[in-house]
Each structure stands twice: as structure tokens, then as C-alpha cells.
């Protein structure tokens, strides 16, 4: 935990903000899927910290300088965070939790619903850095949202060389429907039928539940990043648990990333 300087905090569109923190210590340790826990107010309102995923590590591989966050204003905590200015300091704990295990497979599918793009961009960077050039099939990234304004990071994923497909519930961009529809398409056709490749996903619970079902149907392992209400974020309060085949597990400590097959959905 420490006082960390805000390098920038920009309103990228509508209610979405991108914040860069001068946090080389966190950046050096950070793995895709891990999060930080931020105190948004010095007072007691709101009282608890707010968890946010690590969106990116800034700087170069050999000399990382900080981390980038991407958040949507949904309530008081995120509103306060959106009002912070460059040069101000924040009390940030992290990196926390267990991230994605980056498997050295030739191909992978990343599925994001809404803010689920946050850890997946960081993951895509690491996957691409880790793959040998000659063997590489760029990851497919599926992004879903209610409407086109909620489709984030498509450009960034494309810049990395990912094959990006979009779905919106209202049909304002890409396929009309759920992002899981796109996933089913990929599982049926893409591009190496019969081979196993990992699915990595982050997004709302109903989406993750459907991905779990698909991953079982197609016998393809899926790593999913879950959300839970967190009081401590460090494994102490037992407030953030999810029901798994081995009993309750803490989303902040054993998670937020779990294998889909472990989860017992209610």
C-alpha cells in the first residue's frame, strides 16, 4: 500500500475514464487478471476501497513505469475517482489476486462483456509477447455490450494484431445479440477444429455462466474472471466468496480468475 501519484485521468468517452498511475512497483509484479484496490475518499463515505482491474502496464518491458486503469462511473466511488486530477495522490493496494495463466498455445479466444475488456487487453499483450512468431495465430477477441457506445478497446486490440469481432444487444454495431453467440460461432468453426485452445473471459455473471456451459459443451477449458463485492480485497473478511466444487473460495485471493468448470453456478 502506498501513496501513488496520478499521471493522468482522462474522460475517454461518456462515463468511461482512463487513469495512469505512477506505480512502477505494482507494474513490475502485475499479471493480467490481477487488480488493485483503491481508497477513493479520505473520509468514511464511501468507506471501503474500490477494486479495479489492471488494464495495462505502461513503459517498456524492461523498464515499466506504471499502470493504466479503465473504469466506468457507476456510483459514488467511481464518480469520486473520475474527479481526481493529474498530480494528486491515491492510496492504492496491489497487485492483488490470482490472474490468468497464460498458456503457451498457438491460438486463444478472449471474450469481453462491457468492462471485461479491462484485464483482457493486458492479457492479449502478454499472449502476443509470449508467442513465437512463426507459430503464431493471433488471438480472436470477442467484445460485447448493450450498445455500440459500450464497445471499448476494439482499436487497441486490433493494433496488437488481434482478430476483433463485436456484438451489441441492440445491433448498433456488429452482430445483434450476445457476445456468447460470437463465441459459439468461433467454437464451431475457428480455425483449428478438434484442437484445444484456451478461452479467457471477463464480464457480467450471466455471460460467464453461458461461457462455462459452452466450454463444457465444446470441451474447451475457459478461464473466467469473476466479480464480487469486496470489503477487504486481501483475503481477510471472507466476504467475496464464490461457490465452487471445493466449497467457497475467495474471489479476491484464490480468484478473481477461476477455471469455469470449478464454479457452481446458482
Amino acid at each position: 500500500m502506498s501513496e501513488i501519484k496520478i499521471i493522468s485521468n482522462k474522460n475517454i468517452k461518456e462515463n468511461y475514464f482512463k487513469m495512469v498511475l505512477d506505480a512502477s512497483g505494482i507494474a513490475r509484479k502485475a499479471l493480467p487478471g490481477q487488480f488493485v484496490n483503491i481508497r477513493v475518499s479520505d473520509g468514511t463515505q464511501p468507506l471501503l476501497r474500490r477494486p479495479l482491474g489492471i488494464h495495462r502496464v505502461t513503459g517498456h518491458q524492461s523498464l515499466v513505469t506504471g499502470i493504466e486503469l479503465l473504469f466506468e462511473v457507476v456510483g459514488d466511488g467511481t464518480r469520486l475517482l473520475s474527479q481526481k486530477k493529474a498530480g494528486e495522490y491515491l492510496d492504492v493496494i496491489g497487485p492483488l489476486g490470482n490472474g490468468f495463466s497464460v498458456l503457451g498455445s498457438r491460438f486463444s479466444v478472449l471474450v469481453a462483456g462491457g468492462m471485461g475488456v479491462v484485464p483482457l487487453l493486458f492479457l492479449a499483450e502478454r499472449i502476443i509477447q509470449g508467442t513465437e512468431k512463426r507459430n503464431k495465430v493471433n488471438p480472436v477477441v470477442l467484445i460485447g455490450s448493450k450498445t455500440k457506445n459500450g464497445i471499448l478497446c476494439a482499436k487497441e486490440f486490433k493494433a496488437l494484431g488481434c482478430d476483433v469481432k463485436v456484438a451489441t444487444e441492440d445491433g448498433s454495431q456488429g452482430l445483434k445479440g450476445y457476445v456468447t453467440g460470437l463465441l459459439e460461432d468461433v467454437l464451431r468453426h475457428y480455425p483449428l477444429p478438434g484442437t484445444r485452445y484456451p478461452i479467457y473471459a471477463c464480464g457480467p455473471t450471466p455471460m460467464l455462466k453461458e461461457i462455462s456451459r459452452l466450454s463444457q459443451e465444446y470441451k474447451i477449458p475457459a478461464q473466467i474472471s469473476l466479480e464480487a463485492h469486496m470489503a477487504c480485497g486481501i483475503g481477510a473478511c471472507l466476504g467475496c466468496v464464490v461457490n465452487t466444487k471445493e466449497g467457497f473460495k475467495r474471489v479476491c485471493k484464490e480468484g478473481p480468475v477461476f477455471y469455469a468448470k470449478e464454479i457452481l453456478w446458482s
Partner: protein
Amino acid sequence: MYKGLEVKIGKLRLLNPVMVASGTFGYAEEFSDFMDLKKLGAVVTKTITLKPRPGNKPPRTCETPSGMLNSIGLENPGLNRFVSEKLPYLKKIGVPIIVSIASEGDSREFVELAKCLDEIKEISAIELNISCPNIRGQKSEGRSQNVRLVSQDPKATYAVVRSVRKVTKKTLITKLSPNVTSIEDIALAAERAGTDALALINTLLGMSIDTQTLRPRIAAVTAGLSGPAIRPVAVRMTWEVYRKTKLPIIGMGGITDTKSALEFILAGATAVAVGTANFVKPSVTIEIIDGLKEYLNKNRIADIKSLIGALKL
């Protein structure tokens, strides 16, 4: 060595009066990255039961104005795994270990737990959690109908404390619930039964509703309120109990800083415990210990004990 912060709780001597509240500090290891655990007055463990308990269904916590609700449901690994998996780390810290225990059934479970813990020399004290609002459906001797918690009934409190007192010489702390009409009556019952100290308060029973989904924000519907929101209630109860009993009190409920810790001491607490604030600032206890020392120095007070109950009326 600086002695100005030393206090005694029963037979237990603490180098400073700042400890952590059960259930808000895990088994201490969770906080090792954030602070020097050796500086704590004492560590109080998450409440354990004889058998492992899975705890309640999620969601288990939500935030409320200047506080939070929780219904963890005493998730814990049970006595045996506590001793084999959690205690070794606690022993290494080198500060007094207070083990919080609860019963899922009747007082026999308290007795059995206390007997086992009594044999472990590194354990300094036992805290009886007879005040957790998040476990249900208990039936027990000595309790009248409709009473949910042991600590809501003086007779039941007396019976449990008495039966545990008989099997342990370790410092015995009884933790009281604020969900009562007269906390003094419960405190007096525990005193008569032979407890060495009282800890108060546990959480206040509360509830919160999501107006979008029309559902309770906690799966168990009702839950325990903690944090700064409950502090005035806790200070008041500390003062009430201080006036009625001679027992040392461990005061808690919404402590977030030195000032709020001092409020409890002035109201009559010998020591304080920090709960929810550990989630907000994992090293807050260290700040409070340093802050108390500074307060004594600045006001030329040699011994913190002279502040206990020093409230001017």
C-alpha cells in the same frame, strides 16, 4: 522500554492496548504484507467452531453509509485445522494470541473448544463469541424462546460463561452483543459467571435493500452492521458497562483512528479493538498505537491507564 501504553486484561499483559477485532483480521497472515504484526497489542482470531463451517451464501457484504453489513456466517476451518494450519503462523508473530470461539449448538461445544485450547500454552486468552448475529436456529439450555443469541439473555450468558470458566484458567473474555435492551444486565451476568474481561460491541443487526432488484443486498437478508456508523452506540455501551462492572473492557465499534480509540478509553475501555477499519487501511492499528503514544507525550501523561474512564461529566 516504553511502558506508558501497557495494560492488563485479566492475567494478560499487553504492551499496548490496541488489538484487532475478531473476523476482521483473518488469522493475521493476511496482513503480513502491510504492517509489522509484532507491534500489535494482541491478535484476535476469526471465530472458530469445533467443526468446519462453510459459512453463508453470498452476497455476504455490502456497504452502507459510513459502515458495512456482513453476514459471513462464521466460515472457519474448525478447531483441528485451525490448530494445524493457522496457529503455527500466529505463534511465530510473538504477540499474545486470543482465540475467539463460538458454538453451533449448546454450551458443550464451548466447553470442548475451551478445553482443547487451554492445553496450548502459546494461546493467551479465549474470547467467547456469544454474540454473532449471523448464525441461526440454535437451541440451547437456559435460553427462553425467541432468543437467538446467548448474549441476549443473562441466564444463558451466565450458563455458558460459567461452564467454560470451569475448564480453563486462561484469561476469559466474553464478547457482548449490542442487540439488547440492557447490555449492563448481560455484562453483570458474565461477571458473576467468572469472565475476566468483556469485549464489546459485536455488530448491530441491520438490513439493506436493492431498490432495482427489490432484493435484500445480503443473501441472508439480515446482517451485522459495523464501521464508523456504529461508533456512538459502541461508546455509549462501553460507558454504561464501565459504570456497572469492575471488569476490564475491550472497546470496539467503528474505531478508525487515534481519536476514536481514545473515545473508548475515556468511556471506560482498558483496551480497544479495530475491526472494519483494517479493510480500509490495513496498517491503521500501527497508526493508532503511534498516535496514542504521541497523545500521552504531548499531554504529559505517563500512563494510559490514567485515561481509562477519565470522562468528565
